[in-house]
């Protein structure tokens, strides 16, 4: 059985932010609002030691596509809106989702209310009828009659204006209100033979995607060679996002 996985090579990663921004352009996620981050990809940072022996590292985070996914277990609808595909992607079906947010609550890598500096794999798209992104429904013109507004711009383009359009039977390129959303390993790309967009966009080539159930795959080899680690192993979620090597040389 295929099990898609991602390896993040921290030695190569420079914490630049390109992956997370590229993801926002691919998946049209909204700006942070109403206590939700809407970042399918994000970063955590750690500083340790005292000057001048300070150590600092960045860790990119995303949905771990757990083999033992609490979000799937928690999903109350039948058939489940949050489910595992045959390839091991933790998938979300927008239509079946009822916006109960049980998945968000169950996920050890998510938060219901995300404060500045915190990350959350799962976000909630807002109550029924909430705009995808209030930034682009605002009609204010900072110089009246002379400059544009979010609403005017979206009206002349799309919502959001840089919306990347794609088709997938489970999820939409822009999700409706009152559902949860998260990283889906860009299955709309993967099934067309393309890498997830964060992988394709990483200037450090620090992200490697593949089938970890195949011992000859690059991801399996890297995890084995460098003894890949996962986040919160004690939760027993069996993540499929692995971290290898050290961010620092000292």
């Amino acid at each position: 059985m295929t099990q898609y996985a991602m390896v993040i090579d921290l030695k190569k990663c420079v914490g630049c932010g390109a992956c997370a921004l590229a993801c926002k352009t691919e998946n049209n996620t909204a700006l942070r609002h109403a206590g939700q981050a809407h970042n399918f990809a994000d970063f955590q940072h750690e500083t340790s030691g005292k000057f001048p022996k300070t150590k600092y590292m960045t860790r990119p985070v995303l949905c771990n596509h757990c083999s033992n996914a609490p979000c799937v277990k928690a999903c109350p609808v039948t058939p489940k809106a949050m489910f595992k595909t045959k390839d091991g992607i933790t998938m979300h079906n927008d239509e079946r989702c009822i916006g109960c947010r049980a998945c968000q609550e169950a996920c050890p890598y998510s938060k219901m209310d995300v404060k500045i500096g915190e990350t959350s794999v799962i976000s909630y798209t807002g109550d029924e009828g909430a705009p995808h992104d209030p930034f682009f429904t605002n009609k204010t013109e900072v110089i009246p009659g002379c400059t544009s507004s979010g609403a005017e711009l979206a009206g002349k383009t799309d919502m959001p204006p840089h919306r990347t359009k794609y088709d997938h039977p489970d999820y939409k390129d822009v999700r409706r209100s009152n559902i949860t959303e998260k990283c889906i390993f860009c299955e709309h790309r993967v099934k067309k033979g393309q890498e997830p967009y964060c992988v394709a966009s990483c200037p450090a080539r620090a992200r490697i995607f593949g089938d970890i159930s195949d011992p000859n795959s690059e991801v399996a080899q890297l995890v084995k060679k460098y003894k890949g680690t996962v986040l919160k192993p004690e939760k027993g979620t069996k993540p499929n996002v692995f971290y290898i090597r050290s961010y620092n040389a000292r």
Partner: protein
Amino acid sequence: MKIKRRDFLKLSAATGLAAAAFKGSTLNALADAYRPGIGGEKPGYWVASTCQGCTTWCPAEVFVQDGRAVKVRGNRHSKQNEGVLCPRGHLSLQQVYDPDRIKTPMKRTNPVKGRGVDPKFVPISWDEAYNTIADKMMELRKNNESEKYALMRGRYTYMRDILYEVTTKVFGSPNSISHSSMCAEAEKFGVFYTEGKWEYRDYDLDNAKYILIWGCDPVASNRMVPAAIKRLGNAIERATVAAVDPRLTTSAAKAQEWVPLNPGTDAAVAGAIAHVMLTEGIWHKEFVGDFKDGKNLFKAGVTVDEAAFAEKESHGLVKWWNLALKDMTPKKAAEIAAVDADQLVRIARGMAKAAPNVCVWMGPGCCMQPRGAYNSMAVHALSALTGGVDNVGGSLQGSKNPTNKVPKYDKHMDEVAKKKTKLKKIDQRGYLNLPALGGGKSGGGVSTNNCATGMLAKDPYDIKMVVGYMNNFVFSNNGTDKWEKAMEAVPFTVHLTTVASEFSMYSDIVLPCRTNLFERIGFVKTKANRHATCTLLQSTIEPVFTVINEETDYPWHIGQKLKERGFPNLADCLTDIFKDPETGKAPTSAAELTEYALKYYTSPFWDGKKDVGGDKIKGWDEMKRRGMWNSDAYKYKSQWGGKFSTVTKKFEFYSETLKKALTGHAEKHKVDVDKVMEAAGYTARGELAFVPHYEPPKQNGDPKQFPLIFIDYKSRLNREGRSQNCPWYYEFKHVDPGDVGEQDTVRLNPIDGKALGLKDGDKVKISSIGGSIECVARLWEGVKPGTVSKSFGQGHWAVGRTASKVFGKEARGGNNNTIIPWDLERLSGSNARNGGHAMVKIEKV
């Protein structure tokens, strides 16, 4: 709503109701019924263009769906970024689709100018805008004061010639003012006065065995960001990386060595590394040469006889030793810079062991300060001591980039223009106290920040009209108070820009322009990773509003309007000199001028007339499709063997080239070089002025009152100074090490924070002799005690809804340039924006 639903679910579970009874569940395929109907990406196409988010100038591609720009990536043909960009490329989508884009020409109706004063802009027609501007220009011509027109350039393409140079000169003004000295002229100074090129370097990271990064963070900014990002991880595996910087950058965090020196003491640290290499006899002899009898005479404190040493590719090593190095022991440097002496010895030995594959990557941080010129020379000299200069794994010059040059146009300059363009420029370059020795000449380089001085003093004369394009000098020059006063006093200002900014608020007419990467048309020349590159900026989408190419459309329309008013020279010049290189047809519209000029400049790459090396491109259509040309790889040691462009043709440790330039400047003013050094604010006298040496950093502000040294740095999300209206900028601001998302952060070491009674998240006021700003404190161990650091960018009071708290009135965060007092590095003309001359105090508010 969500709470209600959750409550209901608990209830439904208890009562056995199927949750699936809720909406939307009935029409779906079964969850595990396998994956039919994945349509994937909807149709679209990639168009080649160029990212100008930093000075890497990455060849890029834009993905277009339904006429909209939706994604960005590197140009697949690029031998620098290899198809992948840094975060800035992706962030740029929020610039082209900025809700605060100007959608119409507008004019000021409130004649009162000042910070926070509402200009009361109203929309006007393009015709009214051009007519008004042309009338003002004709008035200057009529009054015989065309020199009082100044063009101020910000982010440009190489089509700049048309607006910056040709328009200004044909009209009759000497004042085409670039922004170059805000960027890194002090950095170029060090390279020019050692190896003879007024240029940035290229770096051969793939082959470097030791990488010494100094005063910049190549994976965050500087000039080959994606290439550096790709290589740093492998470099710390394969080579030794040392980062010299008072702040813990990403490179410093990842490197084997971090040298957190005191800001501005760079020449002491570089001098000590050189001292170790010389006393231990481990300099690279193939480049530098050796003692004639093979016995090393370099002993701490001991003067050496010049005749005892035979140099090869370099000049003046022993003079340098005698004048500046013999006493600069690691111990002494450690005292000056507050660093670890043993670490300097270790670095010197490590570099020597890796020689000549040593890459010294010198950035603006070490030299863009009032006494920074010699720091850049000192740091760059290390690349020669290790033989890494122009060598495998070292710092390189660039391959040829053979675009066409601006065609001859002097016949279109009338007598007035010929006379007026010879007048002194408003930036006072070449005055006694401002040598600005660009290219080896007194007044050879620009001094952008000193325009404000000239304008306020009306010296050499007053300025009556300013045209600024893609610039924001009121915000982006250190000493904003001075610029605000200078711009208030200009009777008529035009701003060509994409969104309003502080500069617009002092303008009388503002014209909406095309955004680079997506809409703007032009080309740029760049180099990285051993390849020179020419890359096109193309219009990838139809702009949402009517906007212009400021470098071509604007001069065309102004030319027509001036012609209607009896001054045909500009219009005639443009039609005369920019003909279609394929058909010979003269342009009849702004769009044709743009296209023909672009074809003219880039034709050597695609017209097949001459082999220029590198990529072979067949014709204009292919050039547009590919969007770029790569040169062949740079040939190592091109300058070795006496081919450096210095006076001696060697790499100069003792700079005869600088001696000539300084002497020339002194003679022009009928003084001696010591007097020049005094006027330029330097402490060196005599021969010391001609070698890299340590100068105590100048401090603006009494340390008793302002006890902390302020360090400015550039965010990896800064698209130069103009991404602060992008919400993603704030969302991901924490990718700058030590920073926090959604806020403007000043970082202090916890020791200083505790002494001031501060904790994370406290609102603070930072004050200097220049002014004060407010932001948020973070206590972080990546900051050297005694220093504070904050990234440039925020603090806009008039850039849109996201960048400003109240547009036109109140800033979000604080502008570093308000607290970095107005000052210059006078030998190069640079803005003094780095290096810790700004002394500050921090108080909780």
